[in-house]
């Protein structure tokens, strides 16, 4: 009765008459918890031993870099098949302790141990984020750390030890680097590198918001900085090809970056989320040349034609049409943007269209500033869901955190979990998602990964001025769970044995109950986040993947036998049909 009263009031306010029928309203995403699937995450940080605390020692002084950093890398650093963690820090003394970067090795059963000492990874720079890739094809993952100031590149020497080879490889990128990504631009088998750069920050500049209150500066106060593209020369060094590639022509405030073949022409393209500037869609024309087609293809601005504060990027096929859609997280008072891929012939795509509102992703995002984001299957139902971690860059209009002794309480925000229906519409499950949706932090990095190997994806969140957090997915207890709704899963590694590494840029179609589910083989991304994790495919009610079809970089297609729920498979190039 109470609900009916609210409905009647709403109808009156809106000028709608329930009894009259005419116009067609859009499909409305449900906010009902039961309909949302009851996905639930629990903060288990203390149990994991992860004790990283990000600190900039800048309370009350408002240096802009302090509010933008806080990324993370998640990758198997020591070859034991468990994801290890690396956290860039601000490199500033805090209460007598230097805010150094930290490296954690994962031990069995989801325990992390601080392995920074002796790892060679204790770079003292002002860290922002990281990218991960095997640049010399020697079978282990190397690490690129972005800084305010010169970046650092570490070669993996095995056993959790790394060597600083920045000078040798020629990648001491200057300025203010943010996100970076390894990808094979020219399909020569060697991973190239794209580094997004932000602005030419001047620490003397003090900024005020309306009303005259001092706060962190925004990007409009500074000149943007051109991004950098490095070509990998045989795994021995990188050469700066930014100018030849065309990427040095635009100086915008780059934050997020991903690499994927967005026009299905066989070559990986680059998409850059810019802060208060139009985004770039660098279409790979071959021969090391890129052309920015973001405006032309509808991925530069939001639906209103306005460049927004682009932060993090998520990629995936959210509507089951087997092309790659893009999601961007944005500033408070803006809406997050979902660029749905309109398809088209290979190399001649019709572009993208902002359908965030229709997907239910626009309005829920306006109260928050989004950063790290990822599509992942939270409930193993076979559809991609979406997580966004939030945290303001200027004092919020209202303070949400009750931590009175914490300077950043005015910047803390809750995270968002949106459950997809597989047809491009999402339901807001944030408040019902347990600790993930209710914690109030200033969050930046996000990694979906299976901590305890039980077949569901947990979440790692890196925070500014606070502890990193691990949220355990309690939705599904794993294979053999007899509860209704317990869904199966398959994990797949997609490897090119000739290159001795993950075949970044490949795509996999898993046939489940006669339906194709497409997933991309790409590094972890989002915002200031790097890493390498196996593909995770939810099966819903099905018990098997019937077969896998892998499209390898370059376009070759192979078919592999399927796998039963609970399996971990490795799809090796050359061993399919």
């Amino acid at each position, binding site marked *: 009765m109470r609900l009916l009263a*609210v*409905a009647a*009031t*709403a*109808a009156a*306010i*809106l*000028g*709608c*008459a*329930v009894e*009259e*029928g*005419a*116009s*067609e*309203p*859009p*499909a*409305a995403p*449900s*906010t009902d918890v039961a309909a949302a699937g009851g996905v639930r995450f629990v903060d288990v940080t203390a149990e994991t031993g992860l004790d990283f605390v990000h600190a900039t020692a800048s309370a009350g002084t408002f240096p802009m870099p302090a509010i933008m950093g806080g990324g993370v890398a998640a990758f198997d650093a020591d070859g034991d098949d468990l994801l290890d963690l690396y956290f860039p820090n601000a490199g500033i003394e805090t209460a007598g302790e230097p805010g150094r970067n930290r490296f954690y090795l994962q031990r069995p059963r989801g325990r992390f141990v601080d392995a920074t000492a002796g790892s060679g990874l204790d770079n003292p720079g002002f860290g922002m984020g990281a990218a991960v890739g095997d640049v010399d094809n020697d079978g282990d993952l190397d690490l690129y750390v972005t800084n305010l100031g010169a970046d650092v590149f570490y070669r993996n020497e095995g056993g959790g030890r790394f060597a600083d080879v920045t000078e040798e490889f020629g990648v001491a990128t200057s300025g203010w680097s943010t996100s970076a990504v390894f990808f094979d631009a020219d399909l020569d088998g060697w991973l190239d590198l794209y580094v997004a750069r932000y602005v*030419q920050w*001047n620490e*003397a500049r003090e900024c*005020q*918001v*309306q*009303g*005259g209150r001092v706060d962190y500066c925004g990007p409009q106060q500074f*000149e943007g900085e051109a991004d950098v593209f490095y070509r990998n020369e045989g795994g021995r060094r990188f050469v700066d090809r930014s100018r030849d590639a065309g990427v*040095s*022509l*635009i*100086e915008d405030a780059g934050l997020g970056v991903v690499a994927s073949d967005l026009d299905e022409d066989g070559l990986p393209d680059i998409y850059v989320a810019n802060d208060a500037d*139009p985004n770039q869609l660098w279409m790979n024309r071959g021969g090391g040349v890129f052309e920015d*087609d973001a*405006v*032309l*293809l509808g991925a*530069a*601005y939001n*639906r*209103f*034609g*306005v460049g927004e504060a682009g932060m993090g990027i998520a990629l995936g096929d959210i509507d089951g049409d087997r092309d790659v859609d893009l999601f961007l997280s944005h500033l*408070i*008072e803006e*809406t997050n943007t979902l660029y749905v891929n309109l398809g088209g012939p290979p190399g001649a795509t*019709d572009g993208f*269209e902002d*359908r965030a*509102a*229709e997907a*239910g992703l*626009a*309005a829920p995002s*306006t*109260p928050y500033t989004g950063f790290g984001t990822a599509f992942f299957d939270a409930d193993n139902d076979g559809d991609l869901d979406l997580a966004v971690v939030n945290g303001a860059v200027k004092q919020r*209009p209202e303070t949400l955190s009750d931590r009175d002794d914490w300077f950043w309480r005015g910047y803390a925000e809750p995270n968002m979990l949106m459950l997809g229906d597989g047809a491009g519409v999402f339901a807001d499950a944030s408040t019902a998602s347990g600790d993930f949706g209710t914690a109030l932090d200033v969050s930046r990095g996000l990694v979906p990964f299976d901590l305890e190997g039980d077949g569901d994806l947990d979440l790692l969140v890196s925070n500014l001025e606070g502890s990193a957090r691990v949220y355990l997915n309690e939705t599904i207890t794993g294979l053999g769970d007899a509860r209704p709704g317990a869904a199966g899963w398959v994990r797949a590694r997609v490897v090119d044995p000739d290159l001795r590494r993950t075949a970044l840029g490949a795509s996999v179609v898993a046939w489940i109950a006669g339906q194709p589910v497409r997933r991309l083989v790409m590094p972890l991304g989002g915002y200031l986040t790097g890493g390498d994790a196996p593909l995770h495919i939810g099966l819903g009610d099905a018990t098997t993947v019937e077969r896998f079809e892998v499209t390898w970089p370059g376009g070759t297609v192979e078919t592999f036998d399927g796998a039963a729920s609970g399996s971990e498979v490795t799809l090796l190039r050359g061993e399919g049909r």
Partner: protein
Amino acid sequence: MRSCASGCAGLLTRIRGGVIAASLLSLAAVTQAAQPPAPDLTAVEPRVRAAIEKELATTVREPDSPSTWGRLAMTLHAHQFDDEAASAYAEASRLAPGDFRWIYLRANVEEARDPAAAATLYRQAVELDPNYAPARIRLASALEKVGLAADADDHYREAARLEPDNAVAHLGLGRLALARGDVDQAARHLERAYELSPETQAVVAMLSRVRHRAGDRDGARRLAQAARDLPPLLHQRDPRRAEVDLLAVDSESFLRRSKTYRETGQLQASLGELRRLIELEPANAQAHFAAAGVQDRMNRPREAAAAARRALELDPDLAGGRAVLAGALFKLGQFGEAAAEAERVLAEDPADVHMLLVTTMLAMRENDVVRALERLDRAAVAGVSDSRMRELMVQLQLELADALGGAGLYDDAARRIEQVIETLERGGASESELRLHQRRLAQYRERARG
């Protein structure tokens, strides 16, 4: 009464949060009548504090006056005390339910943070004044944000009927038509928006999309290139909202208003805002710097140089200040000083295109072709994204090509023309413009061969 048919239940679910919030706000307004809000003024500029405290005091004295509550709300709104402004607008609306202004401006506050609540309030505002086109447009925009495209289309259409020359309305109609796949109708509305507002990024970018979808890939690409250099926002005429913006007295607001006026070509008004700020804060380096830029745009190099010098006196590290000064000195014919300032900028930033072009011109004045070519090449390498800089670069390249051609150095002249074409292509030049230079390029190549 409009109908939302069988899907009202879904629509209700979608807007539930906003409607409940709006209802609660109204309820709060009723129960807390005549209690002015208590904004935290501890960290704000003294001018802002004084302005708000003055309105608060008036409201305490006249708690039954809707216009007093409305004025308080507008002052709070202007300084981004959104919660407090919303509650004051609500009280003004409670006291004067038929006054369009208070509900409309309250919807403005909600627009950015809760589009569903804003849509509800805008609908009420439109019922009170169906002929105020900006309200129709803002309602349509809020409806788009919550996925109610069909309703949004109705209101854009009505706005276009009320104001046939409203570019924002045509942009909205074109955008929605494109989303429906109606490329012809999208093109019709967007071409009209382009006719009305050719210098707006949103219009040009959307028109580029339509032409791309219509198969005109080259035309689309040229527009897409051009869109990058245009001002991002289409400033729609909204006198009601402008009254709020003018109440802001913090320094950032003067600078912001000045920028808006500059972007819309109202240079005198832009300068007026800066002069008011300088009167209030004579030592505000940003204000002097911005004034230098506006004076430069008004082609008043003497005033621009003076303002830039003052800005640099106040803040010697001011980004861009020295470049404006160098440009102004060049225009004044004070070439030695211009060169010195330009070189100082280039020592800091060797890729500053503006200064590379200024030093190119200085070298050309001295007939130092080698140096001019070196600077121009560096500018080309750095690349330009600003249309005025691009125009200047093309002009210099053409002049140098003429000089080289005149000296019989046809290969070198041809290379300059190649650079011109490349620069123009990046700037989205038309085919006819490019054809002109392609003919010239062919002539130089022919002469080089023969």
